[in-house]
């Protein structure tokens, strides 16, 4: 056996170990766009909560109550639109990247990725809904950051490693947000907006180019 052949064998082993177990087509650009949607959403939410009609003049998180159902519905619509637009963008851009790089889009690795993210996300979503119905609005920002972070840490095993670091940052941010009630929207904008833009650009320049 030639030295060259040994080198080639090792290179092909390393490549297959990585490609077979990880979904590498995740688009960094979609992270940047999701961050921008989140910032726009947070700005709209800010107007509803603090400016429009001056209902919640004081920056007290418990002032948002069910006796203002109109605002509550508007906030939920914003959240759902931001989430939907982000998921759709991620789906389309990753599909495009998978086609370009010749990786299978819906294979063993992307299935594992979705399954492992779904557990913390569905758990967190259900828990937030329960608390929301019981009137604990303050839990939304920290809980959404923490459960999203946990989902990213789980996802990191099946995709680009950078996702895991983003997840850890989201968890830390969520815990800090839990310590500082009243600033939920600010932390939410940092976590879902600013961090997404930073990590998305890093991943874009590192892997998409």
């Amino acid at each position, binding site marked *: *056996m030639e*030295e060259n052949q040994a080198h080639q*064998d090792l290179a092909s*082993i390393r490549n*297959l*170990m990585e490609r*077979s*177990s990880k979904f590498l087509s995740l688009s960094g650009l979609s992270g940047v766009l999701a961050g921008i949607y989140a910032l726009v959403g947070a700005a709209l939410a800010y107007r509803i909560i603090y400016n429009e009609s001056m209902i919640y003049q004081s920056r007290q998180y418990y002032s948002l109550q069910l006796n203002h159902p109109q605002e509550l519905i508007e906030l939920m619509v914003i959240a759902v639109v931001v989430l939907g637009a982000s998921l759709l963008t991620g789906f389309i851009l990753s599909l495009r990247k998978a086609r370009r790089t010749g990786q*299978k889009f819906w294979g063993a690795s992307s299935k594992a990725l979705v399954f492992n993210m779904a557990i913390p996300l569905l758990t967190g979503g259900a828990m937030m809904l329960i608390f929301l119905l019981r009137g604990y609005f303050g839990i939304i920002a920290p809980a959404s950051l923490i459960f999203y972070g946990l989902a990213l840490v789980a996802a990191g095993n099946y995709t680009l490693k950078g996702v895991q670091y983003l997840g850890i940052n989201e968890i830390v941010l969520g815990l800090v947000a839990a310590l500082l009630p009243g600033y939920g929207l600010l932390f939410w904008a940092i976590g879902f907006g600013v961090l997404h833009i930073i990590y998305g650009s890093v991943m874009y320049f590192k892997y998409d180019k």
Partner: protein
Amino acid sequence: MSIPFDKLDKAFENRVRLQIMSILVVNDRYDFNSLKELLGVTDGNLASHLKGLEKEEYILVNKSFLGRKPNTNYEATPKGKQAFKAHLDALEALIKHQKSN
């Protein structure tokens, strides 16, 4: 210094077998079609190499049905994982040996 050629596993002489094994050591299970797609080989070629690895008891075959479609999964045995690791060590030794000459 003895030349470490003899430590290389004959079962992994073929590139495709080595590639199958590298996929199965990092994934608990992998199905036939995904293997085929990832390796870019023909059905017959892949099947014969899988059979070879099965004969060495390096992999296990699990046949099941997804609805009505047959689905064949493969997983590495402890013996296979050990053989793969030994083969990698031998490759590494070989490269080191040749560099020192």
